[in-house]
């Protein structure tokens, strides 16, 4: 059984309109981190909304933890699939951090006594426990997104989707969020789906699904993906600096043993380069 399974899913907003998604099939296993990447309008955000029942597929089938997605069990599916959106301000419902984390629990009729425990523990997981009574305007973008993640964790989902959740943050906030979800995902063996247009953010993922014009362009691991620099640029994706440097070195006749995926690996490859020969 997969955490999420898409079977030949196609989607368009209205009849007579072009398809936004065409015949998309993929699976996500429990505890797996899948990154979905693509340029604007490639259909990646549509996939996110389909997983949560915010949209329904025009054709095909979506199965979440063995439950087929339809109008009847949509609430059960929304309990299992938590979602964090792009704009930190436009998903903060409560007047304080505590009230916002409680929102999802209140919606599901969780008893009050249990609510308090769940709020504290989920805020601890994102290290926001000291901000319990803060109003949203006193928090940074990154902190608001961490509260949003806590709100999702509080309902103990089996899958978390980050739909461009870092796009509006500064580099520090971005790192904060990715570290937080990575940590939580590993600790709880959650399925994690991050949707982004930034290749830098897919490097830690287990698998990458590249979307282009409503179709799956490829599914691979990050290390393999960055080898295809020119193809990626053709579909409108910027290749990370580390990869660019590795390719530039190659053109100069310096070949690294393995394609580095972050600064550390690049550094290691460079300073061991000479002794390897």
């Amino acid at each position, binding site marked *: 059984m997969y955490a999420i399974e898409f079977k030949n899913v196609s989607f368009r907003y209205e009849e007579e309109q072009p398809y936004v998604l065409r015949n998309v099939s993929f699976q996500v296993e429990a505890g797996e981190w899948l990154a979905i990447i693509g340029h604007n309008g490639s259909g990646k955000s549509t996939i996110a909304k389909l997983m949560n029942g915010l949209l329904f597929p025009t054709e095909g089938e979506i199965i979440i933890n063995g439950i087929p997605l339809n109008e009847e069990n949509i609430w059960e599916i929304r309990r299992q699939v938590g979602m964090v959106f792009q704009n930190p301000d436009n998903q903060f419902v409560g007047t304080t951090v505590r009230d916002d984390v409680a929102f999802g629990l209140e*919606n599901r009729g969780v008893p009050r006594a249990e609510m308090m425990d769940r709020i504290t523990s989920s805020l601890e997981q994102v290290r926001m426990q000291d901000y319990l009574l803060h109003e*949203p305007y006193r928090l940074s973008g990154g902190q608001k997104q961490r509260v949003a993640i806590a709100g999702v964790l509080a309902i103990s989902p089996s899958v978390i989707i980050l739909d461009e959740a870092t796009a509006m943050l500064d580099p520090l906030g971005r790192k904060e969020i990715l570290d937080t979800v990575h940590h939580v995902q590993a600790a709880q063996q959650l399925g994690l789906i991050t949707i982004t247009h930034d290749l830098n953010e897919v490097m830690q993922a287990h698998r990458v699904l590249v979307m282009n014009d409503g179709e799956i362009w490829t599914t691979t691991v990050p290390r393999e993906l960055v080898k295809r620099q020119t193809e990626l640029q053709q579909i409108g994706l910027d290749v990370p600096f580390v990869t660019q440097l590795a390719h530039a070195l190659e053109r100069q006749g310096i070949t690294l043993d393995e394609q580095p995926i972050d600064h550390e690996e690049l550094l290691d490859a460079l300073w061991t380069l000479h002794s390897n020969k």
Partner: protein
Amino acid sequence: MTGSLSSWQIWQVINMNNLLIVGQYVPTNSIVHRMDPRIKMLIIFFYVIFIFFANNIVSYALFTVFAVGGTLLTKVPWRFIAKGLTPVWFLIVFTFILHLFVTKEGTVLVNVFGLPIYSGALEQGAVISLRFFLLILLTSLLTLTTTPIEITDGVESLLGPLRRFKFPVHELALMMSISLRFIPTLLQETEKISNAQASRGVDFRTGPFRERVRAVIPLLVPLFVSAFKRAEELAMAMEARGYRGGEGRTKLRELQVMKRDVAALVIFIIVVAAALITRDYS
């Protein structure tokens, strides 16, 4: 900073007109602050009704002692209370003067510019002004000692019985709390847009009134567009978080009637009963 408005100034403009109940809260954590908002609202509601039954010195004294005593208990500095009363001072004085000249009861005390002032007029004017003053004083205590969100919770709970008549109580309360949450966000946004427009040469501060009003349009249009966009995204986020109306929902913030609330209510009932007994029935 040529012609743009800071969010603080916009804030002041809003508060100046006292259109919003936000921003008046003075946190002193007194016993009145810690009271159940529902009890506070109930007391104020019935106070407003029963003060009209007072008709002699004793009954008015009872209501005055209750309102002033309550004010002292809040520990809110007098200048904050005075600030809350500023817009109505004029009305209170005006009512008094009006009564002075219009009422023609009792004996003539003195002639002002050929107009006779009767003793009954002085009495009547003083009584009406006092009543007016007490009403404003007590109601302003609510916003001075209760946060907007507590008021929202109180309203939701008090209107609860109306749910039977299909009145959307929960939705109303949620709308109120979401509005409260977005006020600072929209103020920040207004400041941003105001700066952006000022940098393009729009002048909000100088020129004739009509032109300043016209300058607000390029401020309002983008603000509305973005507010609608926010609303749409918020609705989606709420749905994704399992929101489906008030049915089967639990609440984190729970109102509880404590001993102090019961005590306040008992004191209030004694005051009202005493006033009803001592008033003139002839």
